[in-house]
């Protein structure tokens, strides 16, 4: 205050203005400079953040409707079997994990995010990718027709700009492996690869004037291999949320949170 009054006094003297005008003018200058410096700070911090962009902190559970995402979520959190229906909105919670195979080792509070699998919601999961540290992709091992949708989702995921930048590791968890009609991991991965191969012909042929040409997956003329051509670390495993056979998931989480 005192400095401002003094400055306005000097302004008054030097320019021969009225005291009121001088004071107002001084205040104006002070406020303007504060505003400008704030703006500058924002721009600076923005660019700095962009440079050091890193993965988020959440373990994201993705997959199709009925694959067992919500069931896994509650298994991880409460260790109990939960009755579930199709989710309408994402579920997120932070909790400590207790791996059954290593009871002494506690996994610090992890934020787990269960995203609904319905096709209508799918568009929104891309926005959350930057918050993910790793992705657990649930697949219903019994449901072969759904694998088409899974492949399509994978195509979208693997060509997503955030994914290409952050390389979020994916664990393909083939759920419901306790069922007798469950397919093997190998079968599921090959099926997905085959579908993606077909898809890259149609996706690669973008329509004229399309705003964002989707990137081509894999190498042209070569068979698409998930483990080789995906932009991120890719693992597969066999689990059963119902029978609580979740060791690979715990291992995967251990790997990324310790």
């Amino acid at each position, binding site marked *: 205050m005192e400095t401002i009054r003094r400055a306005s006094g000097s302004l008054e003297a030097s320019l021969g203005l009225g005291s009121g005008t001088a004071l107002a003018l001084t205040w104006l200058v002070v406020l303007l400079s504060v505003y400008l410096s704030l703006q500058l700070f924002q721009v600076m911090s923005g660019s700095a953040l962009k440079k050091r962009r890193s993965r988020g902190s959440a373990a994201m559970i993705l997959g199709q409707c009925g694959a067992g995402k*919500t069931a896994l979520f509650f298994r991880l959190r409460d260790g109990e079997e939960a009755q579930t229906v199709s989710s309408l909105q994402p*579920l997120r919670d932070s909790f400590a994990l207790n791996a059954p195979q290593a009871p002494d080792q506690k996994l610090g509070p992890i934020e787990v995010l269960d995203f609904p699998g*319905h096709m209508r919601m799918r568009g929104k999961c891309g926005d959350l990718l930057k918050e993910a540290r790793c992705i657990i992709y649930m697949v219903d091992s019994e449901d072969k027709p759904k694998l088409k949708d899974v492949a399509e989702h994978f195509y979208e995921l693997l060509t997503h700009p955030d994914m290409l930048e952050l390389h979020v590791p994916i664990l393909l968890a083939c759920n419901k492996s306790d069922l007798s009609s469950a397919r093997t991991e190998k079968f599921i991965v090959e099926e997905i690869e085959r579908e993606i191969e077909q898809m890259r012909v149609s996706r690669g*042929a973008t329509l*004229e004037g399309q705003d964002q040409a989707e990137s081509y997956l894999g190498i042209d003329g070569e068979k698409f291999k998930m483990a080789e051509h995906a932009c991120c670390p890719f693992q597969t495993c066999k689990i059963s949320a119902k029978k609580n056979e979740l060791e690979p998931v715990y291992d995967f989480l251990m790997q990324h949170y310790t």
Partner: protein
Amino acid sequence: MIDAFYIFTKGGLLLWSTQLVKVKGNPLDRLIKEVLLEERVGETFATLDSYNLKWKLLNEMDLFFVVVYQGILQIAYLEGLLTMVAKEFVHHLGNGFGAGMTIKHVEFDQDFLRCRQKADKELKDSRRQGGMRSFENTKKGADVQKNREEKGLPAKKSKSGADGEKDDEDEEDAAAKVAEARAKPSKVKAKDAEPPKPKKGKEARHWDGGKASKSLMQELDFSKNQLDEADLAAKQAEFLGSGDEFEAEEVASLSSGSDEDKKEETGRVGGLFKSLTRQVKNVTGGAVLTEEDLEPILKKFKTELMTRNVAAEVADKLSDSVRKSLVGKTTGRFTSMASTVKQALKESMETLLTPKKSIDVLRAALAAKNAGRVYTIVFLGVNGVGKSTNLAKVAYYLKHKGGLDVLICACDTFRAGAVEQLKTHSRCLDVPLFERGYGKDPAEIAKSAIAHARSSGHDVVLVDTAGRMQDNEPLMRALAKLVAVNNPDLVLFVGEALVGNDAIDQVSKFNRSLVDLSADPRNPRGIDGMLLTKYDTVDDKVGAALSMVYVTGQPVVFVGTGQKYTHLRKMQAKEVAGAPEPPEIRSIDQIEAISHGLRRQGSRHFLPAQLRHGRLLRFAKIKLDTSNKTNIGKSGRPP
């Protein structure tokens, strides 16, 4: 009556459920996928799998309560039950609910049983009372009673007043006579005004062989049943009143009026404070949204949607759905209510426009080719929307991008020049055309075209049909036959992006005709997707797309954006749902397309969005003016 009851969270955890009767199929899953996820929360009940479902959404806790029943039940009963269970359940959870998902298994059976019994009892009571309400129960009855009580005191006073003047007595006598003369009506009134008495039930009257004993006659003679003096005085005071009383009453009413004023004032002060806090919260966030807050905001957004060419019905339902999903929610930090609503609306529009199934036609066609099948697409729509043009675009896309062998089939055997138009396209695209001239049965032509494609090794057959208005039943029947006979892989409805309210009429009637007249009633075949044409001519991209998608639940597969074969795009849900784009007008053709659309649709389907847009029309005028001038300059004669 009730088959099942479910309580679940939005996050997908089934907290509690009961099946009183074994439920066949999975109506709950269908409810979630086909109603709740399709932004139809605003509706009140759904019929799925021969079950009726009614639900209640508690936004504060993100809880859904769903009751499944068969047959007809009173809505009031169901609503009562849902509200009661919701209240009881929230009470049951207490504070342990926290983040909305800490409960694993809830013991709620007893409470539910209690709720149900209570609701049943209420239903029974309401049925018993079903006929007429007794007068005392009505509002008027209550008023009368209140009046009586108020006036009772002064009336008695006037009687007990020791003066006992003659004038008064005379008056009383006269009044008594009047009262006698009007015995009946006054009696009725008197009855009305009487305090509630337990009704003496009706007794059966005995008719002993038509003869009536004297006592019985006396009993039956109600005319002598006179009011006694005291009663009469009371009545008189009540119905006639004295001057004093009137004054007193007036004073009383005045004072009560001022009382009310006072109350109102305090209310207003409280209201002012309240609204002030609300205003502050509106800025800082953290306000709990109520119906009253949302009403004006949603009204504004609804009008905005309608000016963006969304059909009125759809705008209505969408804003209803948004309202239902927001009431009880708390706004985020530093977000105003308006921006919260806007965000919710944008998100629900985006969700709607996101296709719920694969719209990759090329991939499906390639898969069919690998499986050794012929992939068939049928294009249908009203006249002049651009079916043939966009069929040619799709043919170009499949041929050049997918390397597929395409066959075009001309099933427009009605409009003059239709086949020739396709012939031109087929020459330009170097794609074979299958035609059998005019006047033949289109279903048969399509069938032989598919057979021809199979034998000669074509991969894809694109079937062009004649344009028809949705109300023309014989033509719709013919179309349904074409679809039923050939069972195409994809039935594409071609619609203009220009239409507003008519969009839902067109697409729903086409869909219904196909479903109603389909060959297999158990597995009806409707429209599989939409192709929006003249998409480049509208600046509010969302209108027709949103309306059509909402009505059919099917995705927009392609949008046509120009006159060239390459002008075919896929719709980006995010872009479209966002802010309206500035108009881009590139050529006079686009304006012609618009004016053509206007002319064709006539005054009934007025296009507010296009006409309102002064910029567009101004542009059109300038363009037309300049073109006229050049005409004059060149030919040297007036146009």
